């Protein structure tokens, strides 16, 4: 069962640049594994601002849980490279 959110999240990345944990709805989720990673340009043509030099959005499909013993879920995080903004896109559990 997948749910769509699109809510801003705060993400901490490790030294390798991968997301290590993220805070969402007053909870901290630890990333256990990265399942998938991909990139897509944003819809820059719909924006009135000039096109940023890096119009990519990073997508991370990660396995994460809100603490030891808590069940792990699949979370899809998105990072706007130009704006440095993270969003939680969808959750599968």
């Amino acid at each position, binding site marked *: 069962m997948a749910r769509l959110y699109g809510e801003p999240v705060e993400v901490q990345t490790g030294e390798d640049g991968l997301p290590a944990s993220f805070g969402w709805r007053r909870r901290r989720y630890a990333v256990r594994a990265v399942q*998938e*990673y*991909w*990139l*897509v*340009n944003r*819809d*820059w*043509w*719909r924006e*009135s601002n*000039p*096109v940023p*030099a*890096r*119009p*990519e959005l990073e*997508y991370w499909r990660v396995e994460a849980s809100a603490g030891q013993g808590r069940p792990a879920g699949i979370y899809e995080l998105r990072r706007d490279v130009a704006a440095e903004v993270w969003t939680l896109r969808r959750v599968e559990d």
Partner: protein
Amino acid sequence: MTLAAPAEAFTHLHVASSYSLRYGTATPRALAARAADLGMPALALTDRDGLYGAFKHVKACAEAGIKPLLGVDLPLLTADPTATIPRPGRVTLLAVGRQGWASLCRLVTAAHAVPTAAARAADDDVPAVTPELVAEHAAGLIVLLGPASDVGRAVAARRRDQARRRLDGWRSLGCEAVVEIVDHLEHRSTVNAVRLAELARDTGTAAVLANAVRYLDPADSPAAQVLDAARNLVPLGSPRLVAHNGRAYLAGPADMTRVAERVTAAMTGPGGRSADARGAARLLADTAELALRCTLDPAGDLGVGAHHLPETQGDVGEQQRALRARCEHAILAGRYRTAHPSARPGIGRPRAARNARDRLEHELAIIDATGMAPYFLTVADVADRVRAAGIRCAIRGSGAGSFVNHLLGISAIDPLEHDLLMERFLTPVRATLPDIDLDVESARRLDAYRIIFDAYGAERTACVSMMETYRARSAIRDVAAAMSLPPDEIGAIAKAFPHIRAKHITAALGELPELRRSRVNTEQLSTIFNIAEQLDGLPRHVAMHPCGVLLSDRTLLDRTAVQASAEGFPLSHLDKDDAEIAGVIKLDVLGVRMQSAMAHTLAEIERTTAERIDIDAMPRDDEPTYAMIGRSDTLGCFQIESPGQRELVKKMAPRDIADLIVDISLFRPGPVNSDMITPFLRARHGLAEPRYPDEKLRAALQETGGVVVFHEQVLRIIDVLTGCGLAEADLVRRHLSTPGGPERTAPWFRAKADIRGFDPETIERVWEVVSAFGGFGFCKAHAAAFAIPVYQSAWLKRHHPAAFYAGVLTHDPGMYPKRVIIGDARLSGVQVLPIDVNASSGEWRTEQAEQAEQTPAGDPGPDDRRPARWAIRLPGRRDDHRAAGRGAPPAIRCSLREVKGISDAEVERVVSGQPYASLRDFWDRARVSRPVVERLALIGAFDSLYPPAPPAPLAPSAPLAPPAPLAPSAPSAPSAPLATAPTRRDLLARVGVLARQAASARQGTSQALDLFVGADPADGMADLVPAGELRELDLAERVEAELEILGFDVSQHVIDFYADLLAGLDVVRSADLDRCRNGEMILVAGAKVATQTPAVRSGQRIIFASLDDAVGLVDLAFFESVQDRCAARLFGSWLLLVRGRVRRAGAGPMAVTVNATECWDIPALEEIRRGPGGLAAVQAALATGHDLQTGPQPAGTPDPAAPGNLITPADPDPERNRDRDNESARPLVFANGFALSPYAETGAPGGSLKTPPRTLWHASPGSTITPK
């Protein structure tokens, strides 16, 4: 196989350049340079759909110091009936060695011959291959099967069984298949890459790593995204487009190693996870190994550096003997111009013959040394065949400097007559292939092509291709369409720009007055402009080069791919530069409209007088012709009709062909800007002594009064000073025009000249001239080749004006709208007859006029009431024409083809059905579409069947008022005399009746037709629409209909509708300009017929414009200082009133131009005049027009703080100019101080001037008399 492949040895095997049309964004040169920067040893180019970029890649790699690989990326049609994936995908082929290159060429040719659904749908040439087709050309080809291939698609669809079957299929067909691993980090692309790698491993197939490159840097991906949208004709965001993420860039070795590690690390099964580091190394090593195998040797594999000449006339020795025999025979038979005394004044016959023989020996030695005899024989054969088909054919370019070309009959120019040099054309010290260019009649160019193809066969011949590239307008159109702007707005934005390069868009917005103030200069459009600039120069469409034909031996199709052109000719993927690199001879067969115009002229003369003129053989010394040129009465003539040329010929007054050669050479940006013209004219008119840097140079420079005009003179100067010989001197001349060339040449030049005893001062003086000359000046042979049609066209105009105008109007060779030529014909005493369904044909024809023409429409009668200067009549300016044209028919009949919307088939039916007895007869037999019949009625094409009453006089209250069609204040003439003849409006109504009858006849109710069986055909309609029922068109309505339907005014000159206004303002007529004082401030007026922005000395953009005021042309110059207030109106209006200062210039005969200070739209002024304030209000408006703050400026006053105004075009601070960023379209500054405005030589904004604008003078309500 080594497992420890060094990472930096990575070679990209799958790369699309900008020659992947509307797909790749990087030029081959940029890609090769980047690959070299990244330390790569080699680079492949595998463009999509063609080999257009192949030789550019080879050249770029050589310049970058890396090795080239070549391949192609083609769409796949799968023959697999069980295929469940809708899109069959694409496959990449790489060539191994010479055999591989030949296979690649033949496969691409075959792929373009495969009819695909996409091609049929898109009306485009889309190639496609099946595995079977690839297998037919498998020798030397590697088949790369990547994620886009049929195998990769099956893998992505998780159909491993199918993927395996397809892979086996490729191998069982005999293809060498290699799996191509690509991971662009798209959604699921990594996992798909892993599965593909596993498949390769499990099937024992070699695998290589690639990046399917389509741009240089990740930041280029928005531009590539726009190209996807443009190519697929859908807006951005469409689900039909693939996602982009910037990863298809030319990644460096470290990045590619990371991709290899990412993919191999995720592999499972035997050899998987446990061995990821070794797996990555192996993948990279296999990639390097395949790259090494596919590296091509330009000379050995691609034939670069060799010449592949037609072998149709025997081996080289035989061909050399044949060439000599033909030339010697021509000399014996006296078939060269200097054999005739008139072409060699002061030289006796024996001496001329000796000169001819010496020159022949000299040239044959050069031809033998270069092995070019087959080329000369081939071109001679082509020229013979073309002429045998009755097609006019003339040489152009440096080939006119060859006496052999003259003896072979290729060239009508004897180089001995004009002192032309063979060395400028061909020398043994230059390895490049010579160019012989043939000019043929434009209307028969394709006939000439067919003759060549028939003679040499499809295996030896193909047309040269060329790329249409993105420029400002096309780039803006495609980007704006991708971003979903409405089509009307896209057109308006694009047309606001002149025809400039796309990369100058932003600079132009800031620098050109007409843009700075326009509404396109807004923030909202900046993204569009930014991306449009990134598309600058990218190829967008492959087209047939206008003249290039490849002629080679029978291996041509092993060296180039061909596809069918839109015209049905085989089109090579080589462009003209590639042909040179590939060593394939190129013959330029250029269609020249003037040749067609002259052919038509000669045919008309022969048709009407039975006189057959051999215009190529006649003497070229006719005094009346030169007198006409000297009066600058040159409209319609080849090359000398432009405003600048009319000024130059007037100042120069040419007396012979040599003068015309100088004239053509001087009228070039180089000479104009180095100010060579003034000293030349002063010397010519005896106002200054010619000066020579050294007495030894007198012989070289005498013909041009000491001024260096010709390339040939530079050759001689260098030869005289250094003694290096002419062949070497030509090399030096070419070297001088390269960047840094003069600096490198100077020490050699000084040393050589010093040895030969020239004093240092002379050496410096000469060096200054030689180095400043650089790439300027002109090839004299080329000018001589041009001078012949200049003279011929002028001679025809002078002696056979009616036939000449018929030729010019039929083939439209010049720069002016036809209405200017028609006006010129009238001024020359040639009557212009309107279209008549019983007399007109598909071409303009000469006719015997039945009566003297009434006063030309432009000339008010002698009894005119207006005393103003506007009313001045021409004092028989061209009486000599009439005398000269004795016996020639003095009238021309307008061609049916001028009617808007008429088809070729309709023209043919009309002509074959002539004569017609009535409108009904015409309707029944000519079967012309209804709108065209209505247009014919409106322009009076049926007047001979229904002779009209004289045109309705205009109401006395509004003499020659602007058109107010259907206005009750302009009543028509009394209807009584019209009772017997239907008016044009009656005819229009009758056309309607006929159309309805035809419609009901088709439905089987033919009742209406029966009524007229047996009735008098001329009269059959009278009962339904009685003659005189509807009011006749008045003069203004007629002119409006003519402009709308024909594009030119026949009944009356359009400017004469404003006669009251112009007379009231004391406007000066063009014919009267001669009488104005230098510096006098005057008003002139007319219809705009030309605007030009040629290169001028200062690097300014000067706009030159010409107005047609019914008695001639006024030539105007708008300097940058006035463009701010004038440019928008100048480009936006058609009928202009201009205030300016008279400038009389020139040493010797004066030429008069007007330096404009202000301009107005005439219809707008007329509006004011007809208002309550009358003429006084107009004068008041003109007076305030000076003042920018209060003047009626349509675009508002400029805001000095607006960003666009910060950089003014005439920036006085040179430092600031230098500091501008790279994007600025700064003037190009040459070594001699000549600066070229980047906006020079670009077409003006707005539509073409060749046809009048659709919204003309007055958008009068209810004036829609013309059927749409």
